[in-house]
Structures are given as structure tokens and as C-alpha cells.
């Protein structure tokens, strides 16, 4: 096995192009589990932790540009206002030690349907930046997840950044697990209200072969919601929203939970996330009035 340590993005892209089967490693919190347990023997490891660009974040054209290699701990510390849903999701990942190393780029690289970053990226309409020796391109998160652990990223491409739109309304994240720390989600849900565009975004984790959106629920809520005043929704509308979220899921029975439990939990999380969001929205609306 070769160990490649590029110190610039250009070198890394050349390394990935020369070794398409080389395995990128950043925080290592997925890769090292596979290596330690002999589940994977890549021809080369391409270490991306020495590339300054991947570890940076900052404002860019009304978005926050988040380098693919920024650990969850930094996101929680610095991006709670710029990316509330992603910061909330980051807080629920694993343990402090894992959050100090694990990254959103690594979460997208593995593309587990349980990955915590995916529901917020879907709900907030974030964009993923990919690069190869052929150039850079951008893919909306909503078009990134193709099938089980398969994404729009091509073999010679690296994930370089995520572009997070500036929030224009409340963003929420909720996760069900057997305890608070150190659990893979049984199922998770993210909700974003966009007051400017008057649209609703959703993201469902561990609810199907890929991270999913509940488009019918998004349209329903965008039509029902009082965007002027943020009045509480009638009970029946809240219930309907939960049902539509659950209906968009395609869960399986596994050791973490049954499909039926997941559907139920999704409808409960959706209703809760909605009521938290409406409360936040009203606070914001009265502040601006």
C-alpha cells in the first residue's frame, strides 16, 4: 500500500487521477475502521489533511463556503449562525474525539444513508463542489445522492467544499437513537423554512437507501404556512405534514429499528421540528415588525 501526502489541491487531484482506486482519507473515522478490521486494502491512501484549502471556511456570494475537511467541532463553534441545521446535526455526531476529526467531506465521501450531514444539506439546498484534474464543478445536494452509497462524484474527483446558503428562516435537526452520544441514527430529520423564497426544505436520514427529501410535504407546508405572521398551524395540518414526511421514506427493518418504527418516528420528528420552527419564525417576525 502506498501513502500519498499531497500538500496542495493540485497535487491531490493529480494523485487521485493517477490512482483512481486510491482511497482519500481526512478524519479517518470511517476509513480507519475499515483498515483496522481488514475490510479494505486500497492500493494507496491519499491523505488530504495537509491541504490548507480543505480546512478553511468563509463567506462567498451570499453563501458560506465550508471546506470539505473542516471537522465537526469547528462547525459547531463557528457556524451555528451561518448554518444552523448543519451545526445542530454536527453536535449529534458520535463523541468529542470523533467530532474533532470527522468531516462533512468524509460524510459525503462515504455517503451512508445514516450520515448526519445529509439531511441538513438537502433541507437547506446546499451545493457540493467537486474537483478533478479536468476542473471544478458544482452539484446541488438534491442531485448528489444517486443510489445506496453511490453519488454524483466520479472516480477521479475529490470533494472540495460545500456551499451553504445564508439562512432566511428557522432550521432544525432531530435524530432518534438509543442514547444521546455515539449512536448511528435510527432515523433523522431536518427542516428549513426559507422566508424569502417562501419555500420549505426537508431531509430524511436512515429512511431509505439514500438520504431523501419529502417533496410533497415541502409543497404542502409551503402552501399552508402563514409566511406573513407565522401563525401556528391547525392541528390537522401539522398532522398531515408528519404523515407526508413519513410517506416519503422507504425504510427497512434492521438491527437499529423496524421500518414501521422509523416511519412513526419520522412523523413525530417532523411535527416537532415544525412546531420549533414556527416558534422561532414568530420570534423573528415580531423582532422585524
Amino acid at each position, binding site marked *: 500500500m502506498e*501513502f500519498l501526502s499531497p500538500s496542495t489541491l493540485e497535487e491531490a487531484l493529480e494523485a487521485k487521477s493517477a490512482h483512481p482506486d486510491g482511497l482519500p482519507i481526512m478524519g*479517518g473515522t470511517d*476509513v480507519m475502521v475499515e483498515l*483496522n*478490521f481488514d475490510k479494505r486494502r486500497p492500493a494507496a491512501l491519499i491523505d488530504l489533511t495537509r491541504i490548507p484549502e480543505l480546512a478553511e471556511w468563509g463567506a462567498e456570494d451570499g453563501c458560506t463556503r465550508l471546506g470539505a475537511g473542516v471537522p465537526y467541532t469547528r462547525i459547531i463553534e463557528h457556524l451555528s449562525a451561518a448554518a444552523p441545521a448543519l451545526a445542530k446535526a454536527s453536535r449529534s455526531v*458520535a463523541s468529542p474525539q*470523533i467530532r474533532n476529526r470527522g468531516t462533512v467531506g468524509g460524510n459525503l465521501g462515504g455517503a451512508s444513508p445514516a450520515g448526519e450531514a445529509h439531511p441538513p444539506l438537502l433541507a437547506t439546498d446546499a451545493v457540493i463542489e467537486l474537483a478533478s484534474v479536468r476542473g471544478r464543478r458544482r452539484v446541488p445536494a438534491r442531485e448528489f445522492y444517486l443510489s445506496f452509497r453511490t453519488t454524483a462524484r466520479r472516480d477521479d474527483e475529490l470533494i472540495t467544499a460545500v456551499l451553504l446558503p445564508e439562512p432566511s428562516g428557522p432550521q432544525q435537526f432531530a435524530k432518534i437513537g438509543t442514547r444521546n*452520544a455515539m449512536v448511528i441514527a435510527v432515523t433523522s430529520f431536518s427542516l428549513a423554512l426559507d422566508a424569502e423564497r417562501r419555500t420549505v426544505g426537508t431531509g430524511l436520514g436512515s429512511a431509505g437507501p439514500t438520504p431523501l427529501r419529502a417533496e410533497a410535504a415541502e409543497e404542502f407546508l409551503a402552501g399552508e404556512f402563514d409566511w406573513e405572521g407565522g401563525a401556528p398551524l391547525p392541528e390537522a395540518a401539522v398532522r398531515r405534514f408528519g404523515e407526508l414526511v413519513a410517506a416519503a421514506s422507504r425504510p427497512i427493518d434492521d438491527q437499529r429499528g423496524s421500518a414501521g418504527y422509523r416511519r412513526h418516528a419520522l412523523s413525530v420528528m417532523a411535527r416537532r421540528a415544525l412546531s420549533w420552527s414556527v416558534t422561532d419564525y414568530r420570534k423573528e417576525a415580531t423582532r422585524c415588525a
Partner: protein
Amino acid sequence: MRVSFNVNGEDVTADNVWPGESLLYVLRERLGLPGSKNACEQGECGSCTVYFDGVTACSCMIAAGQAEGRRVRTVEGLAQGSGKGPERELGTVQDAFVEAGAVQCGFCTPGLLVQTDDLLERTVGAGLPAPDDAEIREALAGNLCRCTGYEKIIDAVHLAAERHAGTGGGA
């Protein structure tokens, strides 16, 4: 491959490293630093926790080559002075764990010590109030102990925080 980095203030080099092995393996098997424990090799237990460039991490989740040129501080580096063996004085956190009875089989202890040291540096060490039970539990959520039931561990952290605040510095 050859990997060189700094451990507990000392520059070290390990030879014949297989590129897929972990920093934990390098520390224990190649550098004779068995303080960090291997209990799961999958990031779940925290027994292998070290400071990596000043931030705590599971050393089983770091590839050996990622440590090249970096600064690592292990549980061995928490004790004061540079001597080896019993003549070495324990640090504040280590003393508190012994006194509070927070050590039974001891397998989880090295990781808990490093993670506690970090918690205290970020709180009392930075002029902030001592951490409460909830903060302690959150900081230690990635460290599993099969013996103690955690109560004595929490007591030990409170004790260490008091002393740390009292002396204006830890180990």
C-alpha cells in the same frame, strides 16, 4: 515507510511502518509507549485518546502517515518531569483519579485522563467556571468504562477541577 513526529516533547522516528496501520499501533508496538490502550480499534471506546496537534482524538482512527511532523501527547506525557517509572510524579488529573477511586481494571483510564485534562484546560484552565455534571458527561461521552459505573470518575473530575483552579494550572 518511515514516520517522524513529536511525542510528549521528544522527536521520534518509527521505521518499517505499514502505511495502513494506526497511530495507536505505532505508539504501542513501535515506540514502546503502551499507555494508550487498544480496546476496540473502531473509535467507540476512547481508551486510545491522545492529543493530536493539541486536539483530543482516538489514535486508532489516525493513519500512521497522518502523524508525520505532528505533535502528539499521550497519557505518558501527563505526568510531570521527564523520568520514567515510579519516580515520576503524577499530574493533577491522575492524582485525582487515584484518590477518588475512579480506577478499577484501569483499561479505560488513560483515555479518560487525556480527555479530562483537555476538558479542564478548556474550562478552569481558560479562566472559566469548573464544569458541571452535564458538561463532564458530555466531554466524556466517547470514553467507555466497563467497571466503575462512572460515578467515581465524575467525582474525580470534580476533584481535579477544584485543584486545577486552586493551583492555577494542571499537569
